[in-house]
């Protein structure tokens, strides 16, 4: 059974962690400096989020579908959940095709180390949902 029951849950938790990243005093400015648009398509549930990494602050569009985004990713939403918990190696997922990508993925992989301080925030964010599921 997928971890997220609906698009709204993906927006709340995955979109939410990106919004938290935008406000993070250390991580936010570094992500905003990436100067690219990332379109992420999810399955189970089927939904999408657009993240625009531009100064002064990254923005998140729940349900966005920017077909001209610099980088496009496709992944099951469960993988996004595992990633933000710090339990998924995105480079391995890309190598094995579990995560599909188009565009200069190297630029996204450069951002990955920056997201590490956000993992505890995400785990806190989903803790109530984890508790409800237990």
């Amino acid at each position, binding site marked *: 059974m997928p971890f997220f029951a609906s698009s709204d849950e993906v927006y709340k938790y995955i979109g939410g962690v990106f919004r938290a990243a935008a406000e993070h005093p250390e991580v936010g400015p570094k992500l905003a400096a990436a100067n690219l648009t990332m379109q992420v398509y999810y399955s189970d549930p089927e939904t999408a989020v657009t993240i625009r990494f531009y100064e002064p602050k990254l923005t998140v569009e729940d349900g966005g579908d920017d077909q001209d985004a610099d980088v496009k990713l496709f992944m099951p939403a469960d993988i996004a959940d595992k990633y933000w918990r*710090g*339990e998924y*190696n995105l*480079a*391995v997922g*890309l*190598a*094995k095709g579990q995560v599909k990508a188009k565009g*200069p993925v*190297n630029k996204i*992989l*450069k951002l*990955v*180390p920056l997201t*590490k301080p956000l993992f505890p925030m995400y785990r806190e964010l989903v803790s109530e949902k984890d508790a409800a599921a237990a």
Partner: protein
Amino acid sequence: MEHAIQASPAASPADGGTTEATVALLREVGSPLVLEQVELSAPGEGEILVRMRGVGICHTDISAANGVVPIPLPAVLGHEGAGVVEALGPGVEGIAVGDHVALSFDHCRECPQCEHGHPAYCELFGPLNYFGTRLDGSVTMRQGESEVHGSWFGQSSFATHAIASAHNAVKVPRDLPLELLGPLGCGLQTGAGSVLNVLGAQAGEGIIVFGLGAVGLGALMAAKAVGCDPIIAVDLNPARLELATELGATEVINPGETHDLLWRVQELAAPGLHYSFDAVGTGAVVRQALESLRSPGHCVTVGFQGLEHEITIDQGHLLLGRRLSGVIEGDADPQSFIPEMIRLHREGRFPFDRLIQKFPFAEINAAIAASESGEVIKPVVVFD
């Protein structure tokens, strides 16, 4: 600040204890490396602890230090290490404590490419070699509570000790100068492997080599070893051209002193060469390397100019049976290819030691500077 360069096991690594080591740490992109102490974890499943005797400086280390590769910081680079095995992790077979090993790149040995003898194209090559952690995301080094990223090419050998992947370690004979053998694991393998494994050059066939660093000269020595003729060497540095001649080049070209390089190639080897080898990677040089070919012909490009690097080539020229191949690590399986290079070396046909200048570990930044300036072809940092 003076740093004592030491490595002292805090507990037996085989018992799960850590090992203290001095590493050359990259804290910020573009900054000099700093010698600092770290705690190495005990070797995990499939890993070994190696006491380094020498490590080569490679262009890829310098690119990573300048931010071209997305390794998280702080990190320890170094991927042409050679040393003595001090401890084994669980599940390691075929290697014993005390073995002399040269370290190369990591690979999974399970994917189709690994199973078919092409580990350089392992489907996990990126995660295993570039991103600073084991596949499970853990790190091999710490400073107290802080993570230090290692696992660079499955070794991170700018260090007195390193946790390396056992897949990565190739046993080498004990009578050879161990501290000099690390560059066999990357730069020399890239050059020689491209000529022997990818181009399959034979006696009497012609080759032109662009860029006479350790990679290009590795290609040149391999071409000479199999009897290629002519062997044309191209570089802007007159000293490199002189050395290339001593190592077997039949002709040399300095593009800075040649008005029309491709016309000069035609003068020397009409209607062109069977093979060309590009160790530079710029658009202009790749194009020259392609246009130096006869028909059919095969060009290998190995020069690294960035993970996104667009160039323009003449597709019409390519159509007539000419090939352009991108190659990493010489498409070699280090377990068989490093012994092959050692065999050629013993026969006097692969004198790679002539490219090397040794630096003490404490002078690693000078070694890097000597590589960048072109003053030294292959700096090798050595440990006491």
